[in-house]
């Protein structure tokens, strides 16, 4: 294909602003798929994605429009996958920025738009859902145009749902997005912008050929991981897999690698050929590191092998998932898992429960801390239980948070950010009604319930996104919880020293409500080192008898006791105390009144 006839583009949008519907409509209009065989939202393949309205795995689809080859590269829509989004964007020359005509710009719109601009993409602004009665195409167009420094008249106004004006979007892509500029004769280089794992064919890499030509059966090499493999098959999606003999500069397609582990081929890596290797990889490769950690334990300890198998299988499909065995005194054998962010954690958890039918206990999420050891080495700690009780220096990850809210909630959002140790960065009016705030916040303050709090304090109007902004020193301490004088490792938390007293108190209060009365008094304490900072007591039960038991109701009474016994088995045994599973999540619910005033 003549490079000048190729256009590679992505669609970027906030969740629910209509990205998938627009993609469907494009496929339909270009007759890649007939309306009849159209499965709605074709690009979102996993069941879970469909339900949550988000896309995790990118795919690329080739369509034809007025003599041009258009490659639509799908991007994940969420903050946790920023790196993956940026790789997808790097494979394109242009992007459609889709904004809901009723909602206007949201935090994710901004984050992704900036990402696209940083990647040097030409942006075609699109205002969608103009068919809705509450749509304000003029207002939304002005917001988008302001954001891009463009003229509102350049905004394409469409309804992806009805198909109205979608052809104008295709025309705009051909006219405004430049063709790829690679060198067809140079040694081959292709960007791996995504990958997935097929049970029968191994790792499938989605690639954008930048320079040169790749041919079927050629020996290839991934430049960062140095993995070598043969191109078992090359092809593109239209939208079904269509094998070809070659993929040339500017084209987008797939390579079937035969590799058995997703981790051997990283997103962002550069492929070249063994016979005619490129001298330098494409820029931008990063080793993505998980930032949010939580313990995953089977509710029934007998299910440990099933959990291990399930994680092994998930890892094949999710190179960002990290896990290692963890043993908790309180919860037994499980895994400490690392995630890109909270949504990633939620997705993994749901897949484990849904696809593998596991009953899980997930401990409160925490972040990666960097701790200075006595010997002068920095160590990364992923688990509060491993956080030293005495630390010289500790660093915690920070994020740059972007929040968009109606102006009446600015005060509430600022208060929340201040409570969470945020540093105000920037505020601007996107429109007379809507304000964009940026804050620098410790990630550790966000992982618990920040998003829930933000939603509840803004009656659901706030949109939120964040980007990692490196590590900074923090005055952090480890707060331990003792139940009946035994430290419960799974309840330890790392907090800023100034908040330690309040959170410790709230946590023990919450635990007192969650732990049922036992056959003896149960003291619950929060402590920093040996110093107890808060204490509550679950008073012993004074009576627990079955009042009557005669010949007529022996069976019924026996069954009552058997049920009582079953209830006990569902609890986790901490020393002599039975602790219900919910109590381990108590730390998640202490955000409400944690102001230090």
């Amino acid at each position, binding site marked *: 294909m003549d490079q000048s006839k190729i256009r590679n583009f992505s669609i970027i949008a906030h969740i629910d602003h209509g990205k998938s519907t627009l993609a469907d409509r494009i496929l339909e209009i270009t007759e890649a798929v007939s309306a009849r065989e159209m499965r709605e939202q074709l690009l979102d393949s996993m069941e879970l994605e469909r339900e949550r309205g988000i896309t995790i795995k990118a795919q690329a689809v080739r369509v034809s429009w007025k003599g041009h080859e258009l490659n639509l590269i799908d991007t994940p829509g969420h903050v946790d996958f920023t790196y993956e989004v940026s790789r997808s964007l790097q494979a394109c020359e242009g992007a459609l920025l889709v904004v809901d005509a009723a909602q206007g710009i949201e935090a994710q719109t901004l984050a992704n738009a900036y990402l696209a601009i940083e990647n040097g993409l030409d942006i075609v602004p699109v205002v969608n859902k103009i068919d809705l009665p509450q749509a304000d195409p003029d207002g939304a167009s002005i917001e988008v145009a302001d954001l891009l420094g463009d003229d509102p008249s350049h905004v394409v106004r469409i309804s992806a749902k009805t198909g109205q004006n979608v052809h104008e979007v295709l025309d705009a892509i051909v006219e405004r997005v430049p063709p790829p500029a690679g060198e067809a004769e140079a040694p081959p280089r292709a960007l791996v912008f995504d990958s997935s794992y097929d049970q029968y064919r191994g790792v499938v890499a989605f690639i954008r050929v930048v320079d040169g030509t790749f041919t079927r059966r050629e020996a290839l090499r991934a430049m960062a991981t140095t993995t070598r493999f043969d191109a078992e098959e090359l092809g593109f999606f239209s939208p079904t897999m269509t094998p070809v003999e070659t993929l040339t500069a500017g084209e987008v397609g797939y390579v079937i690698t035969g590799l058995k582990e997703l981790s051997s081929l990283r997103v962002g890596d550069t492929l070249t050929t063994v016979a005619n290797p490129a001298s330098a990889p494409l820029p931008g490769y990063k080793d993505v590191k998980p930032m949010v950690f939580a313990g995953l334990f089977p509710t029934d300890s007998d299910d440990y092998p099933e959990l291990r198998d399930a994680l092994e299988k998930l890892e094949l499909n999710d190179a960002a998932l990290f896990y290692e065995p963890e043993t908790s005194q309180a919860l037994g054998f499980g895994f400490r898992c690392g995630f890109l962010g909270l949504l990633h954690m939620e997705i993994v958890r749901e897949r484990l429960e849904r696809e593998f039918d596991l009953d899980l206990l997930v401990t409160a999420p925490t972040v990666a801390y960097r701790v200075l050891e006595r010997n002068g080495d920095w160590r990364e700690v992923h688990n509060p239980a491993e956080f030293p009780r005495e630390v010289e220096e500790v660093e915690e990850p920070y994020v740059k948070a972007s929040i968009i809210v109606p102006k009446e909630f600015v005060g509430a959002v600022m208060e929340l950010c201040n409570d969470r140790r945020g540093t105000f960065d920037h505020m601007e009016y996107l429109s007379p009604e809507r304000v964009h705030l940026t804050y620098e916040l410790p990630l550790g303050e966000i992982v618990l319930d920040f998003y829930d709090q933000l939603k509840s304090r803004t009656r659901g109007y706030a949109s939120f996104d964040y980007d990692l902004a490196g590590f900074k020193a923090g005055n952090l301490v480890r707060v331990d919880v003792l139940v009946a004088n035994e430290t419960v490792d799974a309840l330890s938390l790392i907090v800023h020293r100034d908040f330690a007293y309040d959170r410790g108190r709230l946590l023990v209060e919450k635990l007192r409500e969650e732990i049922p009365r036992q056959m003896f008094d149960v003291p619950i304490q929060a402590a920093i080192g040996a110093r107890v900072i808060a204490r509550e007591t679950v008073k012993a039960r004074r009576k627990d008898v079955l009042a009557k038991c005669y*010949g007529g109701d022996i069976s019924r009474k026996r069954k009552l006791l058997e049920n009582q016994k079953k209830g006990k088995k569902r609890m986790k045994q901490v020393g002599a105390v039975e602790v219900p599973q919910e109590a381990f999540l108590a730390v998640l619910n202490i955000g409400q009144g944690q102001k230090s005033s």
Partner: protein
Amino acid sequence: MTGARHLYVHLPFCAHRCGYCDFVTVVGREGQHRAYVDALLRELELERAALAPALETIFLGGGTPTVTALPELVRLLAALPEAPEVTVEANPETVTPELATALRSAGVTRVSLGAQTFRPQLLRVLERVAGPDDVRRAVHHLRDAQFDNISLDLIYGIPGQTAADLEADLGDALALEPEHLSCYELEAKPGTRFTHAWGEELRRQADAMEDYFERVVATLTGAGFRWYETANFCRVDPARDLRSRHNLAYWLGRDYLGIGIGAVSTIENRRWQNTPRLGRYLAALGAGAVPERELEDVGGGVRARERVMLGLRLDEPLPLAGLADAFDPTGLARVEGLGLVERPDAGTLTLTERGRFLGGAVTAELLA
């Protein structure tokens, strides 16, 4: 096994159904008393093989057995086998001098009176027909008829009952010098009219009433009574064992035969419950057939587990022989560590005083 030595006879008739009651009862139907007694005797005949040649106890429970037409009740008693302990349950207002004398002459040795409470306002909450004086009168009539073994049932934890009310009830009961007392915490059983009306109130009062059980035990043992079972107390008499021998049979895990509607029998590995429906019961036995029954297999260690559950209700140590599989060793070790059970000697197990107040939880813990 040579057959059950304990017989339960269910007499379901009542003058009125109390709101808290979930027993099998029948209000009215005076016309069917005769037919019912016929049916009972027919069932007894059909199950004769299940009974031992000599019985130890017979218990006539209800319902209100003494609401049964007196001639029918006397005819029934006369037709039953002999036993050293024959107990009849009675509501105080039904006990006339004639009834007391008739029961005594028919071989009844023990009467269990449903007193429940002596506070008029609390009797109204329970929808009891009798007044406090009916209880006193009933005891006197029974004594006059030479009954030397009278038990009173008391209920505590009644909505609105204060600690002072409870102490007054215990005092009033003790003043009547019964040989035996059963004290039950009121159970708001799901689905009863009472729970519907008072469930909320009971939940509100739960904390305030938490120590009532301790009070009952302290007051009665203080008055010299033996707390021989979770909810049962008897006077200590060097000459006689005043425990309910019939109920003791249940708690010791013995076999028993129950006849009448809703009655349960347990013989070896089989347990069955008769239909609770009067019409069907009468029809079946009228045709000479056993009534419809719900069967339950209590083999496979079930009875051993029940022996643990029931035996630990008693103040005497539970012999452990043959019960090893009924215990969860971890749970047992745990409650032992908490000082809730102890082993008076290698072969027995018993609840400690504190363990007895937590008997349900302790048993759930140590049962396999």
